[in-house]
Every structure is written in structure tokens, then in C-alpha cells.
């Protein structure tokens, strides 16, 4: 039977949006494969919300919460071995890197990562994946059974919220949980200034193109004139130019402000994932082919060191 198994990702006990996307994608794939949609919940999660699954597989064990990657890989790999789904879907998220490759390796199944689209063709799955920072899309054909890691934002969430049979099975945890080689020590919320950029209506976001920490002030001046908060891309936070709490993207915050003003951000897929639904996106970047211009409404390749002061001055004049 051509079942599709979805790993349900949770954060702070809440089901992550990617999980609903995957359930929706799974419904279509299962239909084409003549199978059902199975959802794997490792640890605690709101089962009532998982109406998109035909079978909810629940595995409970004290070591599954808080999240420890090895424990979740063990549970997922065990479910794949015993239930033999033809397709396994995992989010191509921060936790998905461990889970997808770990499970594929443990079960000897092929893995296709960075998936944007999935279709069944005969007994095979045709996937479209973004490669090279979103500059190339690869189409692959993989004979099932196989594992696919799906980029967040590729499928609508709504399709995965209902339509399943809603059966529930409790499964014993795998023996591997008694021999884990890693342990949870502590967790931390994003630190730094107590700022919450997800609440900001306007964001001026800074990327590597700003050149160095000494130039951040230019963006701060603009932000001040706009009544905006400062955000940043991952390299800027990794370099310590701005605190981690201001990071937009996959390993940072997902934001949907009324204005997203991107300064010197090329737009890696991991960044676009966190801001593409902003109402108005204006981007300044020296490379006319930068992916940020694919999601921006307005763009310019104007030198940011000339443009930012000029724009700040005009906005100040208007406000004054």
C-alpha cells in the first residue's frame, strides 16, 4: 500500500505550520499512490488539530520532550521500518536536516532535499528542489520508497488541516531510546534587548551588503525616520553585528510587516522563507540578479551608501 508518512514538527508544544503543509502535500501524494496519510507525533502535541491525517501515530516517552535529535530520528526511523510507507515527508527546517538525512541513512532510503513541489509519476516521485541558494531548480525522479525534505512555504497549510480519518494508534517507543548518546541540558529563548521584531509593522533589515558593523548606523537612521525596527539576515547576526533576536529567516524569526525594507540582502532561500509574506517589500542590492528582487515589489541596484542617507533625509523632511 502506498502510504505517506509525515513527521509532525512541534515548537513549544505547538504544531509547526510546516506540518500542515506536509499533510496537505501528503494527501495528494497518497491519493495518487492509492494509500493513506499517516502522521507521526513523537512526544506531546495537540492531536485534535491533526485532522488532516488518516492515522495518527503517537509515540510517548520522557526522552522525546524536550526535543533531542537522536531520539526523534530513532522514532521516525523505527516508524519507517515497521510501517513501510512509500513516501516519508519531513520539513526542510532546522530540525529537518538531522531528521531527514538521519532517517534516510538509517533506513537505506534515498533522500531528496530542498523540495518545492512533489508529484507522483508511476511508482516514482518527481520532485522540484531549489539549489544553489535558489538560483537553480532541479527536477528529480526517485523510485519509492524514499524520503523528501520539503521547504517551508511550498504547499498551502489549509489543505492539511482536515480531510483525514483521524484514527489514532499508540506505538511503543523504540529500544534505541534507552541508549541515546546525547542529552538535553537547557534551552533558551532568543536573547538581546527584549525586542520582538515579529510585532513590528515596519522593518529595515540589514544584510551582508552593508559591509561592516560601522555602517549599521545608516540603516538605524533610516529605521528611525520610518518608525521601523531593525532586522538582519543570518550572516549579519553570525558576525555579531546585530543580536540574534533581530534575525529574520529559517533559523530566526518569520515576519509579516507592512513594510520590509531590505538593505544589502541577496535573499537566500532561508531568508526569503522568513519574510516573503510581508505586505510591501522594497529591496536595495547591488546585484540585479539577486533572488531578493524575485519577492520584492520595488527594487533598486543603487549604491546603498548613497541611497540610505538620501532617503532618510527625505523622510525626515516629510515628517518635519
Amino acid at each position, binding site marked *: 500500500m502506498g502510504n505517506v508518512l509525515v513527521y509532525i514538527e512541534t515548537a513549544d508544544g505547538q504544531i509547526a505550520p510546516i506540518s500542515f503543509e506536509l499533510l496537505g502535500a501528503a494527501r495528494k501524494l497518497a491519493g495518487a499512490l492509492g494509500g493513506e496519510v499517516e502522521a507521526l507525533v513523537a512526544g506531546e502535541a495537540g492531536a485534535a488539530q491533526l485532522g488532516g491525517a488518516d492515522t495518527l501515530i503517537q509515540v510517548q516517552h520522557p526522552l522525546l520532550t524536550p*526535543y533531542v535529535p537522536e531520539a526523534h530520528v530513532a522514532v521516525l526511523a523505527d516508524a519507517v521500518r515497521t510501517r513501510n510507507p512509500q513516501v516519508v515527508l519531513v520539513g526542510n*527546517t532546522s530540525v529537518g536536516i538531522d531528521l531527514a538525512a538521519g532517517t534516510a541513512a538509517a533506513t537505506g532510503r534515498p533522500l531528496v*532535499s530542498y523540495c518545492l513541489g512533489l508529484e507522483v509519476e508511476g511508482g516514482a516521485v518527481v520532485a522540484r528542489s531549489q*539549489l544553489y541558494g535558489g538560483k537553480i531548480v532541479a527536477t528529480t525522479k526517485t523510485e519509492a520508497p524514499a524520503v523528501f525534505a520539503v521547504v517551508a512555504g511550498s504547499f498551502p497549510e489549509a489543505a492539511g488541516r482536515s480531510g483525514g480519518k483521524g484514527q489514532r494508534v499508540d506505538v511503543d517507543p523504540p529500544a534505541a531510546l534507552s541508549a541515546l548518546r*546525547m542529552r538535553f541540558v537547557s534551552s533558551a529563548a532568543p536573547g538581546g534587548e527584549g525586542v520582538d521584531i515579529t510585532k513590528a509593522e515596519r522593518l529595515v533589515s540589514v544584510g551582508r551588503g552593508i559591509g561592516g558593523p560601522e555602517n549599521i548606523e545608516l540603516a538605524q537612521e533610516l529605521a528611525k525616520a520610518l518608525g521601523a525596527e531593525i532586522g538582519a539576515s543570518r550572516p549579519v547576526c553570525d558576525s555579531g553585528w546585530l543580536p540574534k533576536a533581530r534575525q529574520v529567516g529559517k533559523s530566526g524569526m518569520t515576519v509579516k510587516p507592512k513594510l520590509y525594507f531590505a538593505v544589502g540582502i541577496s535573499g537566500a532561500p532561508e531568508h526569503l522563507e522568513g519574510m516573503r509574506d510581508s505586505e510591501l517589500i522594497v529591496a536595495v542590492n547591488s546585484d540585479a540578479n539577486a533572488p531578493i528582487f524575485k519577492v520584492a515589489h520595488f527594487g533598486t541596484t543603487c549604491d546603498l551608501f548613497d541611497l540610505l542617507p538620501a532617503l532618510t533625509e527625505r523622510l525626515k523632511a516629510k515628517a518635519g
Partner: protein
Amino acid sequence: MHIAVVLKQVPDLVEELEIDSGGKDIDRSFVKMKLNEFDDHALEQAVLLKESGGAKVTAVAIATEGIDQVLYAAKARGADAAMKVEAGEGVLDSRRAASAIAETIKQLAPDLVLTGVQAADDLFGQTGPYLAAVLGWPHVSVVSGVELGGGTVRVHQEYSGGRTAMLEVDLPAVIGVQAAPQPPRYVPVSKLRQAMASGALDSTSGAPASAPAGVAVAGLAKPESGRGAEMLSGAAGEVADRIAALLAERGLARG
């Protein structure tokens, strides 16, 4: 404490990429290659651990064109040894690359392996988890910050929403580094020259044991351009005028 860092080059994404005539790979004849930025952070993390706690660092890479320069630069930055893995011609997928590198890692028998968390061309999953699976070692990806303990490492794993957790991992282990606690250091040319003069790189042969990924690439394409931005051109002053105007129209110009 012996730390192995796995390095590889990827196309520089600042450059425009073209698809070759076969349609299944990028045109590699003119593409500029650079050290994968996450591998760069993994190397920095390894050197930081060496500096703080005393460790031997070995840089390991599959032999590809231009890799000597990468390995010499790693030595100039603080790696004690560099090992090139001769794995034959052609571009290896991440699973096969991991199986080739695993043989060398077994010989080196390090306590800790650091890799970059991901690479922009790893269509078939990332090297680190596969390497860990072949070695039978624990693995954690998306790590920013590694601290050495006695027989263990403590790593900070990042999750979406900016949350992090500290995990304690038994050694030996494979860690996928997202970011080192400080930006990768600059290599002065004099140090690079010194590293190049200090002797040849070590090399081993390591043909991949595993079969190809089982995934057939049907074709590559440039992404559909989608909606795309309306581009504003002109001098900075003119562009600033237009942006100020369009923000004002939408009620976004004032705080």
C-alpha cells in the same frame, strides 16, 4: 583531543550560474568556486577549540580542482594537518562523498568531526548526518557554539524562531556547524605562503563505498521569475524621491 574538519568548495553564489548543454548539471567550466561558508565556520570553530583547550585539528577534503589552496589556507588559519581524499573523477553526491570521507575519518580516529551544516548543492541531503551514520556516531546539525567537556561536547542547536537548546553529546561525534562564535578569521598572505612552503599535503585514497543516491536528476532550470520587483533606476537622489513617494502613498512614510 583530535578534531577533524571536513571542507569542500561550492560555486560562489554571487556569480551567475549557467546550466550545461546536458541540462543536468551547472556549467562548471567558468564557475568560481569558494569554500562553503558553513565549512568556513566549522574550521573557525575547530581552531577556536584548539586555542582554548588545546586540540589537534586536521582539515579533510575530497580532492577536487583548487582544493589544495583551501587546505593550505586551513593550515594557515591554524589546522595542524591537512588530508586530501582521492575519490576519483566526477562530482560526488553528498551520500557518496560522506562514504569516501568516512574511510579517512576511521584512519584518523578523531574525537570530534565538524562539518558545515549544509551546502547549497547538497540535493541529496547533507554530508554530516550521512558521515555520522556510516561511522555509527551521534550527530547534531545547525549548531552555533561547541564547548569541550571530558568525553563529551556541549553544543548549541538552533531552531526556528530563534530558540536554542544546549545538548550534551558523547564523543566521538559529528557536528554540523551553522556558525562559529566569531566570524571566520582572515588569512594574511604571508601566513598562506608559509603554509604552502611548509610541505606537501597528506593524501589518502577513498573510493566511495555506497551506491549512487538512487535519485535521477531529470533536469535543471532557472527558477521562474515570478512577480519580480519593479526596478527603480537613476541617481541615488531620484531613487530616494521615488521610494519616499511610494511609501507616502501607502501611509508608510511616517512613524
